Structures are given as C-alpha cells and as structure tokens.
C-alpha cells in the first residue's frame, strides 16, 4: 500500500493513500467533529460539520470525503473553520425542536453534543420551523421527522446494509425530510422493523416505541405475577449502558437488577433457545429424512421473518416452523410453568427483554397466543430496560452476581451464542450431530460459521450424509440468498439468517454506539460483542442444548418428545404471506 505524508495542524503523519482527511486527522490525534459521517455506512459530505481548511483550496472542504495526497497541508482549528462549523450547527438547530429536556436521546444525541462542543449558547438564526406528522403507528419504531437532520445515515443503512430501501430522501429545500415513500407510515410500507435506522440516527428522529410504562404498571399490580425473560444478546450489550467495557458478560448482574426491579421470577431466554434447538434440530432431521422442503431456514429473527413474508411470500415453506426462543418461552411460561408451580396462568404477566425492535412486532402477532393468553405481554429493548434500571437507582455495575430462577432459568452455551451470527447454526449442529451419530462431537466449536463474514459455509458429515449449511446476516445478504433459493440454486440443506449485521448483538434494540466511538474502537462493535458471547459459551458448564437438564425435564414432564403433539401445539407456528406494501395502489 502506497503511503503519503500529510501535515495536519503542523503535525506530520504518514497514512495510506486514499485515506480521508478525517481519518488522517485521527491518526494525528485530532477528532474532527462529524454528523452525517458514519464509519462503513455513510460518507457523503452532506452536513458540512467536518469542514477543514486545505492549503491551496479556495473553499473549506468536508474532511470525511476529502482524500489525502502527498504533502497535503490541513488546518482543522482555525477561526474560519470554527466559525463555519458553528454556523452549520446553528442552522441545523434553527429548524430543530429545542425540547432536549424531554427527548429520548438527551445525553446521547450527536447534535446536542455538537452544540455543546461548539459552545452554542444562543442561536443567531431563529425562524420558521418545518412541521411533519410523527409516525408512531408501528408497534416497534417511532419516527419524528421534526428531529431529522438530513444526515441520511438511516437511509444508508436501510438501503446499503439492509437492502430494503424503506427510508429515502424526500422533497427539497424547507420541505426536505427522510422517510418512507408517499409519506406513508412504516406499517403501510411494510418495513421489517429491524431498527437498524434507530441504531444509526444521531438524534431522536428515530427511536424504539417506549413500553416501559406497561412494565412499571404490571410490576405495581399486586394481582399480577410478573415474570421476565432476557435474551442471549442482552447479557452482553446491557454492560455498555452502565459504563462497563464493551463485550463484558453481565448475566449475574442482569438477574440481580431485574430482581431488584420487582419481577416475581427472573428467567433466561437461553433456556428456550435450547428448546428451539431441540425442535428446530429435529425438524431439520425430519425434513432430511422424509423429503421435506429444503433448504430449511431459521426463523428466530423476527425482522428477517417479516421481511421474508413480504418480499418472498412464495418461499415461506423454507422457514422452520419452530417458534423463536422468545415465542417458545412465551407459550411455555403460561402453560408449563404454572402447571409445575401451581400458579394461576391468567395472573401471569410475561415481559421480555430483547436486543431487538422487531421482537415487539413478533410478540404482537395474533398467532402467538397458543397458551390461551398473549404468550408475551410486552417486549422492552435493552435501552428501555437500562432506562428502568437507572430510574430505580440501581447501581448496576456494582451489583452482586445472582442466578436465574427454576425451572426456566438455566441455559447452555449453545443458547448463549444464539446472539451472534452463526450461533444458531452452531448450536443446532452441536445437537443434531450428537443425536444422529450417537457420538460425542470431537470438536464442539464450529469456527467456520463464526465471525462477521457476509456469507459463511460449512459441511457436516452426519453418519455419511453430508449436510451443507450456510449463514448470512443483514437483510441485503438474506435477499441475495433468497433469490438463489427461489431459483433453486441454493445448494444447502440448512441456512441461518439474521436480519441485523452481526446477529442479535447488532440488533436494533441494543445500546447505540455513536459515530465517534465506532471510529475509535479497535474492531467492529458487533465483533467485540460477539466474541464476548463466545467467551461466555466457553465458560459455561453445559454447552449443548440436549444436555440441558431443565430441557430434558420439560420434555419428560410436559412436552413429551420433540415434534410431538404438544410441541406442535405450543412451539411451532405458521407464517403469513404479506404484500410488498400494505397499500392497494390501484384503488
């Protein structure tokens, strides 16, 4: 790689040719402020917050898109630069509601940070503000276009990373905004609700729908028996909300915090992840042995399932009928749990903590009521539960480690790795291999399906039958894969699909990693979180779903056998073909 010498504020640095001034400045120890720039997602030079002086250039230049060349001299901190950047931010603020006190992103808002950093105490440009309706119709995501700063990071992640193109730039001038076509709401345009747009929004223009009040109300109701489950990726991502290093496992502290919030029982979605492996693994074997539809595709990721229903409604037979771990847990906690513990099922209120916005949609599916009640009453994201823990004044980082309650509180390492891309596949292979061969796995780690590569493949020998598997994450990759499946060109028996980059650890309900942090981290934040989950798996006493004694017990005492009558009733589901848009455009 050709290196070039650049002088930034008098400091000489050597960087690769093609590097941007923004990146080169970081090497020189200077963080140029940015707003529309987001590493690996968006570099369009639109917001003009990152302006710098380039020696020899007439006008100030946006450093996020300005490539360095040999001998380039850059000044990032002159009066002219500071004044220009400040004016840009003031202009943005002139058309932005000044309701920081009530905003969900107060404290983590990149626009607010810029205003503080630039010492803006009053705005020279006050005037008319554009007014847009708030889109809060979906169960998962709220769009407030009045807080949009046109950075287009949401549009970039929605089109480039996810390939779904729900959000796009609309109009021009004062009427500009970013949103779905025709000004429709996210429901009508059949958004998958993956929430990646929320993760990249610098302001409060995109946020999860806050359901914390429902949880507080249930906890305050003496007639309700309130239980909680938390998913694999929650135990790793929650740490960041309380200042612990990214990738720290906080299972024990999470249990302690939930108990202190007042939940009657604290259970673990890892338990039902193990249950999912039992059902889904056996479903795969059944399909392989009895000529079922192949490749079978995982159905744990609700954003993926919704996307598949609306974009590939003719391919739904490929989806495993096994419910997601959240769904299975919901059905079991209002049937199996009250039966074994002698509790009135109608009194149970089931709360689920997820790294995901689309899980809110999944829980609200009409078919997820197999227990005779709503299987899951409310879903809160990691960000929401963190807000509740903070509200309660719980000193999370210094909590003692506690353990989950029986009988749905013990999961294996196989359950834990559900939270990372490739994890469901690996967990399934650990169980399927041993069930079919009757032998212990020589090597439990399936390294080939780990990591952030877009497409991962492996072949497993099951008693002479070669099973070819593939793992994809992001909806853009899923789309490519589904085109192959539709064309009959996908030469696999089993495919894992996760809607979000990196799997659930990159979910739309996880703590937001701001633009600056993304550039400063040594690795992709989803990789760091994922490695944390694999470390947890390595340290757990049980690492295979079929060896979980609480799963064995559930089958012995309640379910019977995998794919049995009761399993079909409670643990399997069906999918709904949906239109691309929920609009009849010919009317």
């Amino acid at each position: 790689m050709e290196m070039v010498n650049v002088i930034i504020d008098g400091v000489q640095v050597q960087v690769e040719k093609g590097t941007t001034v923004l990146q080169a400045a970081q090497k020189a120890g200077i963080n140029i402020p940015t707003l529309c720039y987001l590493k690996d997602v968006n570099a369009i030079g639109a917001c003009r917050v990152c302006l710098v002086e380039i020696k020899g250039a007439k006008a100030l230049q946006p450093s996020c898109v300005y490539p360095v060349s040999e001998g380039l001299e850059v000044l990032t901190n002159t009066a002219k630069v500071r004044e220009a950047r400040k004016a840009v931010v003031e202009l943005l603020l002139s058309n932005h509601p000044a309701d920081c006190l009530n905003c969900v992103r107060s404290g983590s808002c990149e626009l607010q940070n810029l205003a503080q950093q630039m010492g803006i105490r009053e705005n020279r440009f006050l005037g008319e503000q554009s007014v847009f309706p708030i889109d809060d119709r979906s169960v998962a995501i709220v769009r407030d276009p009045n807080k949009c700063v046109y950075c287009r990071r949401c549009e970039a992640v929605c089109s480039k990373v996810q390939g779904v193109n729900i959000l796009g730039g609309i109009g021009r001038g004062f009427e500009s905004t970013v949103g779905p076509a025709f000004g429709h709401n996210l429901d009508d345009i059949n958004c998958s609700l993956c929430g990646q747009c929320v993760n990249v929004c610098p302001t409060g223009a995109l946020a999860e729908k806050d359901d914390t009040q429902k949880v507080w109300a249930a906890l305050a109701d003496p007639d309700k028996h309130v239980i909680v489950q938390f998913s694999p990726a929650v135990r790793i991502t929650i740490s960041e909300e309380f200042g612990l290093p990214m990738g720290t496992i906080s299972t024990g502290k999470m249990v302690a915090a939930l108990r202190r919030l007042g939940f009657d029982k604290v259970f673990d979605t890892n338990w039902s992840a193990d249950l999912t492996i039992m059902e889904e693994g056996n479903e795969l074997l059944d399909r392989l042995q009895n000529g079922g539809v192949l490749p079978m595709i995982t159905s744990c990721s609700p954003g993926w399932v919704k996307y598949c229903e609306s974009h590939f409604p003719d391919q739904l037979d490929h989806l495993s009928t096994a419910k997601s771990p959240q769904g299975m847990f919901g059905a079991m906690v209002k049937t199996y749990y009250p039966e074994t513990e002698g509790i009135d099922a109608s009194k149970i209120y089931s709360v689920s903590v997820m790294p995901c916005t689309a899980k809110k949609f999944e829980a609200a599916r009409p078919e997820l009521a197999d227990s005779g009640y709503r299987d899951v009453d409310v879903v809160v994201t990691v960000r929401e539960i963190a807000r509740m823990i903070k509200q309660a004044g719980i000193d999370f980082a210094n909590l003692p480690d506690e353990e989950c309650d029986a009988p749905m509180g013990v999961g294996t390492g196989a359950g834990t790795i559900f939270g990372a891309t490739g994890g469901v596949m690996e967990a399934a292979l650990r169980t399927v291999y041993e069930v079919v061969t009757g032998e212990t796995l020589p090597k439990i780690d399936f390294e080939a399906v780990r990591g952030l590569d877009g497409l991962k493949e492996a072949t497993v020998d099951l008693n002479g039958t070669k099973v070819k598997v593939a793992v994809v994450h992001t909806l853009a990759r899923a789309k490519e894969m589904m085109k192959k499946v539709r064309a009959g060109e996908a030469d696999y028996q089993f495919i894992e699909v996760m809607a979000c980059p990196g799997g659930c650890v990159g979910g739309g309900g996880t703590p937001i990693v701001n633009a600056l942090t993304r550039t400063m981290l040594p690795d992709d934040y989803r990789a760091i979180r994922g490695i944390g989950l694999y470390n947890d798996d390595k340290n757990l006493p049980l690492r295979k779903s079929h060896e979980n004694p609480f799963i064995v017990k559930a089958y012995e005492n309640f379910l019977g056998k995998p794919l049995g009558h009761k399993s079909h009733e409670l643990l399997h589901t069906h999918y709904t073909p949906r239109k691309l848009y929920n609009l009849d455009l010919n009317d």
Partner: protein
Amino acid sequence: MTCTCGQNQALYAQLDEVINAHKDQPGSLISVLHKAQGIFGYLPEEVQAYVAEKMDIPLSEIYGVVTFYALFSMNKKGKYTFNVCLGTACYVKGSGKLMEKLQEELGIGVGETTEDGLFTIEGCRCVGACGLAPVMTINDKVHGHLTVDDIPKLVNEYRELAKAEEN
C-alpha cells in the same frame, strides 16, 4: 399491479414500451418518469410503484426523485396546463403580474386545478424563448409577448375550444 380498466391498460402498455426501451440504461429514471408523466398526465402512487417494480428501483428512490424535481407532479392535471415562465427575462418583463392575473381569473393557486378539470396553473424557470418574454405555455404551445389583458382572452379561448371539442 395490473390495471383493470381498458383505458388504463392502454396507458400502461405505452409505459411498458418506454420502460423496455430504457431498462438497461443506467441513469434513465428521470427520462422514464418524464415520459410516464406525459402518458398519464401526472405521476400517481400506482404509476411510481409500477415503474419501481418494472425497473427494479426502490420505490423510496423514485418518490425521492419525483418530489425533488419541480417538473414532476403527483396531482392530476387539467385538460390545459397554463405554465407561466418566471425565469429572469420573463420576470423583468412582468410575468409575475401575468401569474397574479391568471390565479385571479381562474380562482386557483399555483399547482392547483380548476374544479371542472379544465385548467392547471404552473410556474417554471425559462422555456428557452426569452426573445418572446413574457412567455406562457399552454400545453405544448408557446404564447409570447403577453400582457395582463391577454389572460382573460386566452382563458376564454381555451374554454371555447374545450366546448367545441366536447360537441
């Protein structure tokens, strides 16, 4: 996305021809939308969705283009579109006054259509006939050297023309 009524079917057949002619040309979306607007008179949601599907371009992108360029309209146009040039040359020659008179005469604003479906008012920036300033186009026909007094005459003229065509 197929259409049930006969007239629409014929229009969509024309649109198909346009799309097929441009399909493999990158950057041809604006041309296609321009021609689609010529065929349908405007670009309703279903036409945009149709173009999106046929050209394999995201609907959000198409809607973004349609709302960005003033040339495109999502509102149904009248039989006659009065397009007053507000470019520099026409403006200094008084086209602003023409526009005011036209709105007063028809009782509608810019971008609106009269209730009888006959007239739509639009403004544009330069039609390339600055020598004739101030200029107004009515559908494809250019009317130059206009005065405020010409406006009621032209409106009447086209009203009569519409009547004649009806009979």
